């Protein structure tokens, strides 16, 4: 009751400030308000949904969606844009947490099975989606006339983007529900592997698209690809090693230092053209596997630092969900989403059977692969930016899919974690 009252009061205050002022403020003026509102109200909505056995993340998303520009407009468009500023930091922090959770020694016995599952499921998903888009081309809404090679290129890029998973949501859900166990580890390993494959596939397919549409293609393709993958790991590992030294020899204000490290990776990452997610993952891996800190200081810092970032990140994602895109091509999006889920279900089960992963986990692992988020959106923005005519159509479809998968994915994955009995086991393991 107290929480509901506090939520009502918070919404009332912000509604009064935003609506009562009757003026549109420039961006920096709205950021703190958006931040405070999201932190309190989204956290309360998440806690409320948890009572109904739904993920808190879904609560944060729903809050953003309801209060965002498309529904109640309490979080106005400038506010939603300003909240996006935290995205870079959030993705890095989330990936860093994922790295900390991946103990190579512990994963070694299952590494082969994980690779087999990941490879088979990704291959199946790519092939299935490519075939489906090729056959369903007339219904996808591309009005222009394309040559066969151009059509192949568009279908290939659409496949690469639609097949992507969301490491961010997976990691966030594991961190938020304090889950630990074979399902969490398997899902995490597969989404990270898929992310590596996605970067590789997207870069190669984009070169093919450029060739198909009369571009010259990038001569330094392999160099840039190598830099993006290996450079990210090298940069992240260096930062991780420095952070490990800090933890060992200074060990003060760890939460502040952690956020600073993430800000460095996020900030320098874009300037150095490296993939921040991979860099942060490498940093976390180094800290966990090479120089693990003594005691609980890092664990506590991560717990304290992660929640506010997750709350704002998902509230911002909810506020930015383009519901108008979903309304525009709703049926196509629903069909494609259903097809994607069916393919994930089929090939995950097939991969699990081949890799001899025990049935309860093997049957449920597909449920952690449905979510899509920032990485997918980022890739479509690249396509739409380079090819505004047909790229915009790809963007509209993918944005609609993200809206659907953002809502369905976390619910499914949490249900799987609950059925596997892994929720809350992170604390039990570390205790």
């Amino acid at each position, binding site marked *: 009751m*107290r929480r509901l009252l*506090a939520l009502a009061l918070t919404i009332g205050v912000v509604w009064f*400030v935003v609506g009562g002022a009757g003026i549109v403020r420039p961006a920096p003026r709205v950021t703190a308000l958006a931040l405070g509102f999201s932190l309190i109200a989204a956290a309360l909505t998440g806690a409320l949904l948890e009572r109904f056995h739904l993920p808190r993340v879904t609560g944060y998303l729903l809050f953003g969606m309801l209060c965002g520009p498309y529904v109640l407009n309490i979080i106005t468009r400038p506010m939603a844009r300003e909240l996006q500023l935290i995205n870079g930091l959030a993705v890095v922090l989330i990936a860093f947490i994922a790295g900390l959770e991946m103990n190579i020694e512990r994963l070694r016995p299952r590494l082969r099975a994980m690779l087999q599952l990941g490879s088979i499921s990704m291959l199946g998903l790519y092939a299935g989606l490519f075939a489906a888009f090729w056959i369903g081309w007339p219904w996808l809404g591309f009005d222009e006339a394309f040559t066969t090679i151009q059509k192949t290129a568009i279908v290939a890029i659409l496949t690469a983007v639609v097949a992507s998973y969301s490491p961010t949501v997976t990691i966030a859900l594991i961190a938020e529900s304090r889950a630990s166990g074979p399902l969490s580890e398997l899902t995490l390993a597969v989404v990270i592997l898929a992310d590596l494959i996605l970067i590789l596939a997207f870069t190669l397919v984009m070169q093919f698209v450029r060739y198909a549409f009369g571009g010259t293609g990038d001569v330094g393709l392999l160099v840039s690809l190598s830099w993006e993958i290996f450079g990210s790991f090298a940069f992240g590992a260096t930062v991780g090693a420095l952070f490990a030294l800090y933890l060992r020899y200074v060990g003060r204000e760890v939460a502040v230092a952690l956020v600073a490290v993430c800000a460095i990776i996020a900030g320098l990452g874009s300037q150095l053209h490296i993939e921040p997610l991979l860099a942060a993952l490498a940093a976390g891996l180094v800290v966990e596997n090479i120089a693990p800190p003594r005691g609980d200081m890092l664990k506590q810092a991560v717990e304290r630092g992660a929640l506010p970032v997750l709350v704002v990140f998902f509230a911002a994602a909810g506020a930015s969900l383009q519901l108008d895109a979903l309304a525009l091509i709703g049926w196509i999006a629903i069909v494609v989403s259903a097809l994607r889920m069916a393919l994930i279900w089929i090939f995950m089960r097939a991969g699990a059977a081949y890799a001899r992963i025990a049935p309860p986990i093997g049957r449920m692992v597909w449920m952690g692969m449905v979510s899509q988020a920032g990485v997918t959106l980022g890739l479509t923005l690249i396509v739409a930016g380079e090819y505004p005519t047909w790229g915009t159509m790809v963007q509209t479809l993918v944005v609609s899919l993200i809206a659907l998968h953002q809502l369905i994915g976390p619910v499914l994955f949490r249900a799987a974690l609950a059925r596997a009995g892994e929720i809350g086991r992170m604390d039990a393991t570390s205790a």
Partner: protein
Amino acid sequence: MKVRFRTSGRTLGSLLRTRAALGLRPAMAPVMIFLPLGMVLGPAGTRIIGTDALAHLDVVISIVLATLGVFIGIAAGTQRSAGRLAAASTLEAAITVLVVGGATYLLLRSWGMPSLVPHALVALVLGLCASASAAAAVGEGDERTRRIAARVADLDDVMPIVVGGGVLASIAAGETPALAAAGLSIGLGAAIAVSGWLLFERAEGAERDVFVLGTLALLGGSAAYLDTSPLLAGLSAGMLWARAPGQTEHVVATHLRKVQHPLVVLLLVTAGASLQPTLAGIWLFAPYVVSRTAGKLIGGWAASRVTSGVAPSDLGAYLIPPGVIGIAFALNILQVAPDGAIPIVFAVSAGAVVSELLALIVTPGPPDPTPV
């Protein structure tokens, strides 16, 4: 329970006496380190903190201002039996405002200095910035005079923040009258504080962190959105928490203690980076330091007369160190009047550095330890 409240109030008050809060030696006030550092890093120096970064820091500054307001609100709200001390502090602050404001106004008029902000408002703002003070940190074993000075330093920030709420609205030139804007800040602060009061006690761990951080951001953000004072909104919330039933004040105090060091550093570095040495700022700086010192000494003497037998006659000498509130208020003015407040920020910041140096000479040090 009472002891605990008073302890947290005193600990928060120590933030305003920032030397101790940052664990620095008395000769190394943070103002003297981080203001010049900010200037070196800022657009006027190496440009490591560029104008874009400063624009982003502006967001954080609103939250920092609200947090400082909460610090002062709690520190003031917990000193329940300090009626005479509160009166003395207000008198001391008011005299400083009059001396600095009066001197500045006369000088501005006689110089005929062009200014984007009316002369009277510039004078009033400088007076308000000057009236905040930060006596040295005290412990249980310190002499009584120093403890009294520390409590006066805590309380003399209240009046400038309240008056400053109205002044800020006048400078912002919005549609809301100054008095209504100050009332709006207080009302918003109280409403958000009630929301916090409902949340803090029953939350735990990281969730409580989220609520405290969110509440502070909401305090700063809503005030910034309406061009009202985040300091006043924070003060209002802090005072309400200090007097609310339960342990809200204790919860907030515990959380704020963890962030006090980064907050002070961030504020000072941002202030340093925002400094632009203009002719007007340089002209205002010397009279500001001189009149502030005079105002503090006169105000301290007058306050000691009001609280005869409680405060010492040399109270003013203990109140020379300016702390961070004056700089915080100047930055707040800069947010609403980006061009007009440049000389004010320079005069107050440079004045703070010199006042800290002056305090090393003027302010009585702790008694020598008794020889064994």
